[in-house]
């Protein structure tokens, strides 16, 4: 009797599991389905922990960092004023540049639509540099779109859900970006070296007029992954090993990746 019941239970479980697996496969794919199901289970617990941890964190942060927050607020107001001034000054130049680049049939990021998004989660491990954002397919966000914030390129959308997306940061070890710099036709490939390590480029030709402080922009090459002119990084040091025929270049992202709260997704698809 007990063995019949156990067999029936095993059959029911097996058939149910097969049906669920088939349904997941037909709708969203197995791995994506498993991820969605797990997110569904974990989200109430994450929400509960967040509701408990946030006030405690705010209490400590408020008690310890109050004067820092006030100082930071004053500094931000000052920088906002400076940025507003600079924006007004460069408006005419931007318009002229836009007209010129349109004539040259190259994409200009200033004319591309963007979607603002909130950063919801950082990577849960130290082995990948990613963030999750609050906009997804429903907002027109697709895999491959560039993401900008805080003064430059932040990363690329690598996966989307209807209401969210995952962005691989430019510092991730799997990130490579084609860049160039002002008055130069030289293209350089930057690569990320992990979350805590500086980005870099090797095999930069000695003829390149590159020096510390040079700002590197996406090169927007045809078929490239990014539109032209997104600021990516600033050169921090240029190393020339004795006897070498190329430079090794160290760079730091122009965007402040340590304080990502809001980002803009550029609605631009590669090869468009």
């Amino acid at each position, binding site marked *: 009797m007990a063995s019949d019941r156990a067999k029936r239970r095993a059959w029911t479980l097996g058939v149910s599991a097969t049906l669920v697996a088939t349904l997941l496969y037909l709708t969203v794919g197995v791995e994506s389905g498993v991820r969605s199901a797990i997110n569904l289970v974990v989200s109430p617990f994450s929400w509960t922990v967040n509701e408990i941890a946030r006030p405690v964190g705010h209490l400590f942060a408020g008690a310890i960092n109050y004067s820092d927050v006030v100082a930071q607020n004053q500094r931000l107001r000052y920088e906002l004023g400076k940025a507003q001034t600079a924006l007004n000054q460069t408006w005419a130049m931007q318009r002229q540049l836009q007209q010129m680049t349109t004539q040259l049939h190259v994409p200009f990021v200033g004319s591309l639509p963007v979607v603002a998004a909130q950063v919801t989660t950082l990577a849960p*491990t130290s082995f990948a540099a990613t963030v999750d954002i609050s906009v997804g397919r429903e907002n027109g966000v697709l895999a491959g779109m560039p993401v900008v914030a805080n003064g430059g390129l932040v990363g690329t959308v690598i996966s989307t859900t209807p209401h969210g997306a995952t962005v691989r940061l430019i510092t991730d*070890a799997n990130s490579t970006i084609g860049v160039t710099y002002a008055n130069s036709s030289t293209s350089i490939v930057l690569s990320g070296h992990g979350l*805590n390590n500086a980005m870099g480029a090797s095999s930069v030709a000695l003829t390149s007029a590159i020096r510390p402080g040079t700002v590197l922009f996406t090169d927007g090459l045809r078929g490239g992954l990014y539109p032209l002119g997104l600021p990516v990084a600033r050169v921090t040091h240029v190393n020339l090993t004795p006897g070498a025929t190329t430079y090794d270049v160290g760079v730091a992202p122009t965007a402040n990746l340590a304080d990502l709260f809001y980002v803009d997704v550029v609605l631009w698809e590669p090869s468009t």
Partner: protein
Amino acid sequence: MSRALVPALVATLFIVGVQLVVLTNLRVAGVVVMAVWLWPLAVGLSGSTALGLIVAGVGGLCVDAHAITPFGLTAVVGGAVAWVAARLGREGVGDLDSAAWWVTPILGAIFGLLAPALYVVLGAVVLNFSLWRGSVLDAMWVNALAFAVFARPLARLGRVVTRLSPAMRR
């Protein structure tokens, strides 16, 4: 074990919540402390291999679902941690009552040091060579330190949650 399964799973999901909400933002030297590996260690030291493997699998998969790293890798490393810890737990090593107070922290430090390295090695096995380009050494020492500090409290929590006494170990 079945009596301890439900509270252990609920505790595991809360640990995952802490991992995703608190520890992800509370980085030490840019490194995330992997509570989802420390928890299987704590449960494993109580002597239950099956329970340790289950919490490692559930916790690891939950974190893997939020990461772009190879799916299941965190769970596999957690499983290895739980298995070895359970072998030690059955021998009474790291037992909170009989062993010296410093044994559990030392074990925590060793596991915290080795787990990120194992993660990177297994990543290479599944042909993901980008993991070692991150801050593996930082991840190792930060996790070793954190595991040393929290291994004993979490082992105590594990014993309370799973309600496993030495007599019930299987």
